[in-house]
C-alpha cells in the first residue's frame, strides 16, 4: 500500500514537473510589438570626414622623422561627429550628433534605433551631415512610404550606393 502510494506520488510529481516545463517553455505568449504597429529601424555605420585635412610635410620635418616613419603627408586620424536626423511626416523622430567610435575617435559613427510607428502612408525624411559644414546636410533622402502592420522598414546608409537606402 505504502509502495503504491509512493509510486502515485512520484507520478504526480513528474506530472507537475512536466506541466511546469511544458507550459512555460512556450507560454504565455509575449507581445514584442503590438500587431497593429509597424517598425522603422534606422541603422547606419559610416566614417565621417577627418577633422583636419592632410598637410604636406616640409623637407625638414620629414628629415626629423625616423627613417622608417618618413612620409610626405601628416593626416590626423580624428574624425568629425556625424549629425543624423529622421523625420516622419515632418515630425522629428531622431536628431543626434554621433561621436566616432574608437579611443582615438577615428572609427565609424554608428546609429541603430527602432521607432514603432502607426501603419499607413508616411513621408519619411532622413538626413546626414559628415563634413565640417555648419548648416545643411551632405546626404538626404525623402520618400513616401506605405507601412503595413508589423512591417519592419529598415533604413541603411552606404556611400558607395549613393547614401541612404530604404530596405523593405
Amino acid at each position: 500500500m505504502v509502495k503504491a502510494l509512493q509510486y502515485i506520488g512520484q507520478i504526480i510529481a513528474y506530472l507537475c514537473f512536466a506541466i511546469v516545463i511544458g507550459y512555460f517553455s512556450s507560454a504565455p505568449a509575449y507581445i514584442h510589438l503590438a500587431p497593429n504597429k509597424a517598425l522603422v529601424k534606422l541603422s547606419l555605420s559610416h566614417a565621417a570626414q577627418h577633422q583636419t585635412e592632410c598637410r604636406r610635410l616640409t623637407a625638414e620635418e620629414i628629415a626629423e622623422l625616423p627613417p622608417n616613419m618618413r612620409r610626405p603627408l601628416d593626416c590626423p586620424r580624428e574624425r568629425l561627429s556625424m549629425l543624423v536626423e529622421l523625420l516622419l511626416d515632418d515630425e522629428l523622430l531622431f536628431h543626434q550628433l554621433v561621436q566616432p567610435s574608437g579611443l582615438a575617435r577615428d572609427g565609424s559613427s554608428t546609429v541603430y534605433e527602432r521607432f514603432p510607428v502607426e501603419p499607413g502612408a508616411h513621408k519619411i525624411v532622413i538626413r546626414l551631415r559628415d563634413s565640417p559644414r555648419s548648416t545643411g546636410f551632405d546626404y538626404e533622402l525623402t520618400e513616401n512610404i506605405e507601412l503595413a502592420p508589423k512591417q519592419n522598414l529598415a533604413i541603411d546608409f552606404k556611400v558607395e550606393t549613393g547614401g541612404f537606402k530604404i530596405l523593405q
Partner: protein
Amino acid sequence: MRSLHRYASDALVVVMVLHLLREYIKERMRGARSFSWVTGLALLWFVFASGISGYWVVWDKFAQYIAIATTEWLDSLGIFAEPIARNFLHDTTLSGRFFTLMVFIHIAVPLILLFLLWVHIQRCTHPKVNPPLGLAAGTLAMLLCLSLAFPAVSQGPVNLNQVPSVVSLDWFYLGLYPLLDRYSGQFLWSLLIGGTLALAILPWVPYRRRQPAAVVDLDNCNGCNRCAADCPFSAVTMGPRTDGKPFEHQAVVNPNLCVSCGICVGACPTSTPFRRRTELVPGIDLPTLPIREVREQTLKVCAELNGDVRILVFGCTHGPNLQALQAQGTAIVSLNCIAMLPPAFIDLVVSRNHADGVFLTGCRQGDCHYRLGLKWMEQRINGERDPFLRKRAPRERIVQFWGGAAQQKKLIEELNTFRTRLLKLQEATRANTDRNVNSSTPTVVLDG
C-alpha cells in the same frame, strides 16, 4: 528529438535553480564550500548562453526575435565597432557565415560549460554526477511523454521585413528579455551582473567565523589513509612523514578546504573510546569538539539514563531537532556529522551496557550536509568500510534513521518503535535468563 532536447534544457534550468536555492537555504556555500558556489554562478551564465544560442540556430520567427534582441542587447555594451544587430537589418545584409558562428558557439559554449562543471566539483571527493537509475528513467520517460504530447514546433519561417510581434517565449531562458523592450540594454546588464555579484558574496554574508580545521596529532597518526579516503572535500591528503616515525605517510590537513565536519575523526582507528591507558587523543581531531569530550559526554549522559529502556541517540547538528527527543530514558549526543562518530563508540555503549540501545540519526538519505557522512556511516556499520563496527555489537540494539529535519514526527515514531522493540528484547532476555536459572538450579528433594 528536438522537443526532447528543448524540454530537457528547460528542465536543466529548473533543477539548476532548485539546486542553487537548496544550497543557499541549507547554507552549504559557506567557508571552503564557497568555491563550488562561486564557480557554480559562472556556470549559470554558460547555461543561459548555451540555451539562447540553441534557439538561435533553429532560425524561425522566434529565433529572429532572439537574434535581434540579443544582438541589440550585446550592442548596448558599446564594445563593438559596428552594431552586430545590423546583420539582421534585411535579408540582403544577412550572411550565412553568421550561422556558422552560431552553430560553433552552440557547441563551444556547452563544451566550456562541461569544463567548468569539472572545476565546479574539483573540491568534492567522490562526486556523484549520474542520477540514480530510477530517477533518470523517470525523468526520461516524463520528457519523452511531454515531447510526444506537445512537440516543440517552429514558429514560422523568418521574414526580416516583418517584426515577429507575438512570440511564444521560453520563459526559462528568456524570461528577462521582455525587460529589453522597456528598459535599456545597459540596465539589464547591470541587473544581471549586479545580481551575480550579490549572489557571489552570499557565502560571506552575514560574516561568520569559520570553525577551526581538523588537526593532525603525529604521535597518534600512522598514515593509514582512512581520513583522507573519507574526507568529502579533499581537505585531508597524505604527505611524506616529517617526524621520523617508521611510517611512510602522515595525514595533512589543508585548513582552507576543511569544513570541520569531523568525518576524518570518525574514520581514524585511534579514535577508540576503549583506550584507557593513555589519554584519548586520536591521529586527527576537531579542536572545537575533541573526541575525548565526545567520550566524556557519552559516558556522562549514559550514566544519567534511567527508566525501563535506556536509549542513547547519536545525531548530527544538521539533522532533526535532537532536543525534541529528550525524554525519560533517552540521552542525546550531538555531533557535527553522524560520520564523526567512530563505530567503536556504538560498540562501547551497547557492549558495555551503558545503554540498552543506540539510535543513530542525521540528515535525510541522499542529502547529507557534508555529502558523504551517511554513506560512510552506513558502510562502517555494515562492515563495508573501515573502521568497521565490531561484529560483537548486537545489531538488534542499533537503529539508523536518516530522515533529516523535515521528518521530526517520523523520527519520534521510529524512536518509540525502537523503545518497544528494546523492551521486548529485554523481556525475552529476562525470560531466557529465568529459564536458564530454573533449569540450572539443582532440585532439592526433601525426604520424609
